[in-house]
């Protein structure tokens, strides 16, 4: 019995001693250089082609901006735009406009981004009554709304300023006040059916386009706010001051591009107004990816640098809409109302900060294309948002310089290492 206890105790002590010297730490870091790595990561580059350009007239009203000006763009066509405005019938702290006491003016707030010459000459704009009734939600690019040039309601000149304050014609103000002061139930409907609003028309503009703001800038350090109307009158000291502000009820732009932009050799034009959108598909053969476990796929588009002296709104975003089935609406409506499934921000050159290319993360699309059950989707590639500004860019296509052609870079883990 004593021997059994000795034996048991001795064995236990030895095992405890053994366990104490066999520590367990770290995580297999030794020997990582030996032989082939367990996950060999490689990349392959696939040329992408088959771009079709489709056109649609995008929305031009009730957007974040509206354009006004005229630019003879040698690449993207001559663009002429007038901004349409219609003031609201309500104002905080103001029940009625007293036409013999109040005056009314337009405070036009412009975005700092411009389209046209970098050092423009003074541009002359005139304000007219719109030539016919319009609604912001029904305004489209290349479907112009003419101005009634018979009566000028105001005018201003602009270089690079952010704001223009334009007194409006008293007779027009009186017409507007009739609606504003009306208390009948039919006021709104009559206003919609009868009041044509204003049209800010470029009259002496050379290669300059400005964008009216309808939302305050994110970095509005000068407290400029957004475009609005102001009711002005003498205060108790006899000095003119703003009694109330009236926001635009409806707004938009009458934009015409003539001739339409045409894609140059080696490139394809994209316009955020949906006048030029790439339609394509991603055709991939699963056989090309046997033994390759994909971890990332990026579609690269190079931006073609224009060698003219025009300043264009900076194209920083590319968007890709993936459409599985036939559209039940127009392409413009679809692209405007649906969030793109893929998007990317342009990569800048480290030296001169110019925008060079887009890398779009297509990993999910490649997985679906290679291994999914659904039909190959149609891809619509556009730039920026349709926000009222006028953006344009040319992407290098499959006929451009070889090093800048569109390509799909697929990164994968080789899963058939050394297999027979």
């Amino acid at each position: 019995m004593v021997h059994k206890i000795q034996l048991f105790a001795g064995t236990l002590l030895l095992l405890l001693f053994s366990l104490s010297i066999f520590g367990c730490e770290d995580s297999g870091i030794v020997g990582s250089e030996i032989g082939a790595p367990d996950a060999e990561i490689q990349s392959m580059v696939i040329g992408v082609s088959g771009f079709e350009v489709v056109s649609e007239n995008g929305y031009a009203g009730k957007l974040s901006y509206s354009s006004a000006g005229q630019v003879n763009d040698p690449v993207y066509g001559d663009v002429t735009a007038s901004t349409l405005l219609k003031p609201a019938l309500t104002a905080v702290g103001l029940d009625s406009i007293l036409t013999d006491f109040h005056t009314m003016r337009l405070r036009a707030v412009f975005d700092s981004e411009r389209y046209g010459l970098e050092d423009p000459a003074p541009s002359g704009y005139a304000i007219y009554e719109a030539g016919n009734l319009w609604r912001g939600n029904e305004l489209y690019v290349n479907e112009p709304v003419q101005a009634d040039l018979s009566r000028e309601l105001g005018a201003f000149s602009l270089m690079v300023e952010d704001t223009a304050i334009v007194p409006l014609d008293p007779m027009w103000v009186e017409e507007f006040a009739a609606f504003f002061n009306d208390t009948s139930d039919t006021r709104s409907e009559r206003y919609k059916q009868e009041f044509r609003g204003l049209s800010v028309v470029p009259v002496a503009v050379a290669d300059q386009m400005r964008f009216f703001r309808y939302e305050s800038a994110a970095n509005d350090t000068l407290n400029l706010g957004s475009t609005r109307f102001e009711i002005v009158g003498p205060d108790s000291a006899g000095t003119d001051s703003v009694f109330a502000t009236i926001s635009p009820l409806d707004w938009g732009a009458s934009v015409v591009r003539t001739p339409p932009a045409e894609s140059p050799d080696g490139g394809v034009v994209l316009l955020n107004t949906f006048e030029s959108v790439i339609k394509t598909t991603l055709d991939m053969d699963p056989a090309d990816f046997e033994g390759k476990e994909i971890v990332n796929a990026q579609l690269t588009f190079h931006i073609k640098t224009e060698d003219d002296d025009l300043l264009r709104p900076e194209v920083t975003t590319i968007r890709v809409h993936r459409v599985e089935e036939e559209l039940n609406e127009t392409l413009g409506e679809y692209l405007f109302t649906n969030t793109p499934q893929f998007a990317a921000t342009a990569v800048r050159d480290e030296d001169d900060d110019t925008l060079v290319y887009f890398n779009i993360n297509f990993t999910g699309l490649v997985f679906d294309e290679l291994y999914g059950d659904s039909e190959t989707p149609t891809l619509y590639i556009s730039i920026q948002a349709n926000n009222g500004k006028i953006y344009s860019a040319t992407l290098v296509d499959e006929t451009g310089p070889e090093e800048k052609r569109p390509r799909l870079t697929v990164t994968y883990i080789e899963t058939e290492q050394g297999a027979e």
Partner: protein
Amino acid sequence: MMRMMQEICGKQYSGKQYSRLTSRTLPSLLLFLLLTAGTVIAQSDQNSLSRSGSFYSGFAFGAPADIYSGHTVGIGLPGVSDPDGFKPNSTNPAHWGNARLSKGQIRFGLAGYRGEDSVNRETYSLFTIESFQVVLPLLRDRLGASVGFRPATRLEYSRTNSGIFEPGELVDPVGFITNSTGTGGVNVLEAGFGYRFNDYISVGYAPSIFLMAIEKNSSTDFSQGQFQSKSITETISGHAAGHRFGAYIQTGSLLAERDRLQAGLSVQLPVTIRADLAKTTFRPVDGVFREVDIVGESGTTSSDVKIPLEVQFGITYYLNPANSVTTELQFQQWGNARFSSDLTQEAYFTDRFKTGLGYQFKPDRTRFGRSFFTRLQYRTGITYDSGHLTFAGSKIDTWMIHAGISVPSPNSPSSMDLSFHMGWQGTDSMNLVKEQIFKVKLSLNLAEFMFVRTRFQ
């Protein structure tokens, strides 16, 4: 005969007592062995209580797992030339004919490794149930049968690989880290017979089933979120029949009156397994994660795995019953092994031989007295293993020293063997890994009279 058995047991039992004893111990012994078998069979994914075995077990279908008889594990040699009456010997089927008692054995092992390459150093360890075996005498001292389960190769590793790669000219460099683990190996379920012609010659044959079950997992994460983490699990499984032959000769009174010379030979024929290969991962397709079989897509669903020829030969010389010297040579033709699912790793194989010299001391109690320590048996040895892998001409060889004791049960022929092993494997030059190895092995050897009831009644 009865007197002889009573002497062996060291205790006087009547025939009825023996009958009662065996009827109690046999069911518990069998239950214990069955439970053990279940544990060992499941070892492909559960035998690693701690993290990892040798780094070099992570290639192809694992590193060769040596088997030992219960007592010669203390000298680090298989024991093909040294049978023991109270302990089963799994290394040479010829020894199974030399069985008077029913014998069972199970061995546990705890191994610790301190690995270092030219840059890093780490420690890892592994607990395993190494083998079990039951030997039953069918015709006492003439014909015996054995059933056992032992590993042929063992794969237990964990590796980490990290770095930076550039996906393309216009894609920013991405950092990655890959952690790879593997468990399993090739296990052998073996049943065979040994026949003893006379006092000098015995032979044996053991057919077996080689069971292969390996699971490797590699998980890769990236420093940029738009690169998807990827986990790939590879399983290789299959089975094939194997054959092992053994021979044993002994003679005595060569140089002295009580000396004895023993020689043993064991040959395991090559085994080719047509293994099923599956490699799975998850892919985000159509908005949901799907498990897919990668190799199935390419039509490759099998792999040829060839476990090479093994020859073991040894000589043991007993100067007298108390002192013996053993030397053995183990040869495995790994240069002829196959692993068709990864020819890069197959190319690392090279022929392996292992040899060593061991000394055993069993104190003569009439000479040294009857203390506790004179009941023990003492063993020590040194071995050299050329290794089965070669990298750019560098063989991964191993030097080890061994020491062990046998602790007999005070009132039965059963015993326990405890052994300690220490050595060095590989080299840290050429970015290879040098491992310092520490091992402790515990063998529980059960020896009982079984199936004797009818004889004594």
